[in-house]
């Protein structure tokens, strides 16, 4: 049997405990819900509604009214640190089970939640900083690598510059020594026999020409960099040009006791429209290199013409070029190390640039100790000779070339007419293309010299009309424009030559005479 007094005391103690708990909750602004272990509501603090809870009255099932209680065991102590109250506030919920009941304690967790958020934010920021640091480190490494590469390039440039200056000095000194030495001989021995005199003068001339080609390469390199290099195409007899080149380089090969072979599959009368001086420059550069680097064996030059394309092959039995050096060989100022052959390192660069400018391409095939073959192909149009001449021009300057000159600029026209007349040329001057057409219909001429930019009718229009009319008279365009598009258009329209102003009258006359030779124009 139980002790009623002890039971009464226990009940009083429990009441007292609950009272203290309520006071404590009130003082700490906690809310609570007292439920039995089946979630039936026994008691609710007044402030529970402040957290947005629905009105819970004793007898109701708490799990029917409060979603987050569903699934929880009322006999198990648990803390839910951050959940949203029914009105969206962050709250902390603790289940405090007793023998028969469970207190569900609810407290405001806004501060902890914000603190937690702040910590999370800090953690995120730290993570971001770490990632930024990693990125910066990577960028630093890349920048360092780039800097090292640039340094290496600068070192290479300095090496090239030094090698270029040393090569250039050597390259210039050799022909200069030759010129000075032989001219000293000529001064010291004025009464030399004719053969020795000629030989000495030829050496001086050859050395002078070699110097000139070196200077031209240097100047062209500068020009190409500033896109100022121009082509001056005209009618050129290819056989004559290749013969001239062969004659020029043969003595260089002979001096090194190597063989030089020139094999041409070109027709004797093959005349094409291209810039002969630029082609000559390419051939001299390539052949000069081949001879310079070949100490034993031979150098050969082969040329062929097919489908409006000139193909040139230059072979040598020199030391060859390694595949590693083949990648470098056309770079400006680059020279193969350890060859002991000085040079400017520009010859191949310029040659490749000129060939590209001529619409062609250059290829190099080489193997160490087996020699090198350099070939290139350029497209040019063939100039058809209409009347064959049997020696000597039909019309030459002495006979009084009749020239029709279309130019609207009075200053240019007056000076050009005077300079031409001084050379025995009979000039008819007109101020535009339309007048030129009228003059061509009214009298015979040997040559037309035409400006491009003129009022009433420009040079291109007039040239087109002349060719459309079936007139094949030699026609030279003379313009201040060095634009390659204008030059290409002139060629397309069937013009025979293109001269950039200021025009050298001797060049003009030489070109005119060449046309007369090629075409045999009748007076």
């Amino acid at each position, binding site marked *: 049997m139980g002790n009623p007094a002890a039971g009464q005391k226990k009940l009083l103690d429990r009441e007292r405990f609950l009272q203290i708990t309520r006071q404590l909750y009130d003082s700490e602004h906690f809310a609570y819900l007292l439920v039995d272990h089946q979630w039936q509501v026994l008691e609710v603090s007044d402030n529970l509604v402040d957290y947005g809870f629905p009105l819970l009255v004793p007898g109701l099932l708490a799990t029917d009214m409060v979603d987050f209680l569903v699934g929880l065991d009322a006999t198990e102590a648990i803390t839910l640190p951050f959940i949203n109250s029914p009105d969206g506030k962050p709250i902390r919920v603790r289940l405090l089970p007793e023998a028969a009941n469970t207190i569900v304690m609810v407290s405001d967790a806004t501060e902890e939640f914000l603190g937690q958020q702040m910590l999370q934010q800090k953690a995120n920021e730290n993570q971001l900083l770490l990632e930024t640091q990693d990125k910066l480190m990577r960028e630093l490494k890349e920048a360092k690598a780039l800097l090292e590469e640039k340094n290496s390039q600068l070192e290479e440039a300095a090496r090239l510059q030094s090698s270029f200056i040393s090569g250039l000095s050597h390259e210039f000194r050799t022909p200069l020594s030759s010129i000075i030495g032989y001219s000293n001989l000529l001064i010291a021995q004025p009464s030399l026999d004719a053969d020795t005199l000629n030989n000495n003068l030829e050496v001086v001339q050859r050395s002078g020409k070699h110097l000139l080609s070196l200077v031209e390469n240097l100047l062209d390199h500068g020009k190409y960099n500033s*896109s*100022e290099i121009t082509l001056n195409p005209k009618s050129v007899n290819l056989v004559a040009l290749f013969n001239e080149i062969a004659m020029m380089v043969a003595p260089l090969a002979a001096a090194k006791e190597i063989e030089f072979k020139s094999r041409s599959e070109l027709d004797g009368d093959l005349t094409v429209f291209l810039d002969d001086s630029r082609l000559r420059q390419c051939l001299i550069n390539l052949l000069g290199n081949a001879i310079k680097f070949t100490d034993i064996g031979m150098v050969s030059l082969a040329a062929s013409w097919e489908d409006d394309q000139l193909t040139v092959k230059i072979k040598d039995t020199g030391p060859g070029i390694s595949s590693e050096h083949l990648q470098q060989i056309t770079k400006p100022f680059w020279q193969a190390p350890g060859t002991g052959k000085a040079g400017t390192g520009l010859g191949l660069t310029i040659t490749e640039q000129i060939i590209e400018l001529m619409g062609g391409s250059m290829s190099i095939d080489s193997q160490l100790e087996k020699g090198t073959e350099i070939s290139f192909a350029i497209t040019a149009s063939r100039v058809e000779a209409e009347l064959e001449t049997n020696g000597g021009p039909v019309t030459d300057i002495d006979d009084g070339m009749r020239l029709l000159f279309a130019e609207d*600029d009075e*200053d*240019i026209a*007056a*000076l*050009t007419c*005077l*300079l031409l*007349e*001084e050379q025995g040329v009979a000039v008819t001057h007109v101020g535009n293309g339309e007048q030129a057409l009228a003059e061509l219909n009214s009298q015979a001429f040997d040559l037309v010299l035409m*400006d491009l*930019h003129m009022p009433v009718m420009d040079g291109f229009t007039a040239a087109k009309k002349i060719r459309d009319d079936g007139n094949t008279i030699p026609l030279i365009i003379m*313009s*201040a*424009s*060095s*634009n390659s598009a204008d030059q290409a258009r002139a060629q397309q329209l069937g013009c025979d030559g293109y001269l950039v*102003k*200021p*025009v050298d009258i001797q060049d003009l006359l030489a070109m005119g005479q060449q046309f007369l030779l090629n075409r045999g124009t009748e007076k």
Partner: protein
Amino acid sequence: MNSDRINELRLRYQRSLAEKAENVSKLLVQVREQALEKEDLQVQVHEYLHKLAGSSGMYGYQDIADLCRKTLTELETNEFTALSERLVQIRNLLQQHA
């Protein structure tokens, strides 16, 4: 006889340089006042410099011809940033030789 006539022409050309400098100045004013995108102005400048390049070169003023040609190349590649500066340089050269 011809050399006298050539000298006469050279002298005549030299006397025209001051007027040519004046013409370049006028172009310069237009270039500075108008938008460079204006095609008619580009054409006008191009035509004048083209003629000047040709004639100055023929009469031995290679510096003027070179500068004109350089400016023409820039115009043909739509590079107008230095046009005013170039025109000033050309005008100065013309005045210098006049």
